[in-house]
């Protein structure tokens, strides 16, 4: 895989799964 593809894989994962993780954590804290 090219460096560009790897970077976009990381970028996509951080935004989506990182974002989801943060939101779920906040939800669990408040429940």
């Amino acid at each position, binding site marked *: 895989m*090219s460096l560009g593809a790897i970077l976009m894989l990381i970028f*996509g994962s951080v935004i989506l799964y990182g974002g*989801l993780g943060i*939101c779920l954590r906040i*939800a669990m804290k408040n429940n």
Partner: protein
Amino acid sequence: MSAENNDAQWGSRLGFILAAVGSAVGLGNIWRFSYMVYDNGGGAYLIPYFFALLTAGIPLLILEFSFGHKMRGSAPFSFARMGKKWEWLGWWPSLVSFVITTYYAVIIGWSLNYIVYSFGRVWGKNPESFFYKSHLNLSSGISEIGGINWTILLGVAAVWFINYIILYKGIEEGIEKASKIFMPLLAVFMLIITIRGITLPGALAGVNKFLEPDFSALLDVKIWLAAYGQIFFTLSVGFAIMITYSSYLPKDSDIVNNAFITALANCGFSFIVGIGVFGILGYMATETGQPISEVVTQGIGLAFIAFPKAINLLPGFQTLFAIIFFLGLTIAGFSSSISLIEAFVASVRDKFDIERKKAVSYVCLAGFVGSLIFTTGAGLYFLDIVDHFVNQFGIALVGLIECIILGWVYKANKLRNYANPLSDFQIGNWWDIMIRFITPVILGYMFIQNTILEISKPYGGYEMSALLKFGWGVAAIMLILGIVVSFTSWTGRKEELLSREVL
């Protein structure tokens, strides 16, 4: 139980989120997202995609969640509560959702058929010929309807029966329980597909094609519009679904964080499945000695032709892999179809004061009858036209008008002030700007552009008479019917609730 809502509430926040994610995650997440990325600048497409998610997708979800939660009813009831003259804006998407279910059920039916075909891989060495000739028995054109295909009819009947059973049991016992089974299962199935996909020889070349960025594509307006279109259609906004689903939330429920979780889970699902799909396409290209561009496809062609072809090439466990894939596709379809039907069932119940079991029975029976046309030899042509027009001139237009009416007439800040105190975290003025300016401008531009394109070049090369009847006609009838129904009177408890002022 809420005093104002009919009879139903989600049993838990998790149940609501899983149902909302289930509604958003559909067939498009599996067969469309990855192609859109590949075709629109590869990994670079993620930039406009995330931009669209934050500026339109999540704001629209927050809008529908807060509106439904505040008004405590189906889309027609919610809009009627805002003002009787807006009731049609709730009926229109409810009716469109019902029409969509009639052909969506047929695609899920095909998927059920393919689970059975997976035993022994009935599609043989030529899945393309099998799909069009043996499975669909596709006629030569839309004017030649042909007879009903009994295998497909059987699958469709099963789909409507399962939908019926789930919806009959209600919100907590039906939709919520089904979502709690469907969504984890779907996640596991798709993880298996993805892990198997990326561990095949040549898979990384496929994933590379999927994600290799072409940043020059970002200068093309079309890519940005494609991203906004993709985000809009993937989140189940503009379907009356999210308004209905959020009305079943208890009164002190979060709005904003639920919207973020739903949107991110939906897009996260698409992303991981995209990696698996391109891994498998990369393997297929390697095995057949073709360039990846030759094997890449989307939609029905990806699910029912390219995947069976790829499954034929697998080194082992072909039948198991096929069953897992088509089961996953079926589950993704069901979790969306139940939400589409529920949006319409809730509208009918609210307006005519019918008990759930009766409403579900009538709607599912009518839906099954409506599906029959798509089980004929010309079914695929009808499906293609109706799908294109109700999406372009139903859903997208509803989204545009919804932003204008709720953002400008009802006032976005009223809904923001309603959602913020309930939510885990708050939204600022930026949200009003997105709802009042950014999203309507983009949806409006897309609508004008699509209308011009539609008039200048008839869709799919079909005859104009067919497009007028099954495309423009169906889309227009939904709007007209919505307006007509909105003139009839409300009966029962909801009628009394409509007279109460909403803060």
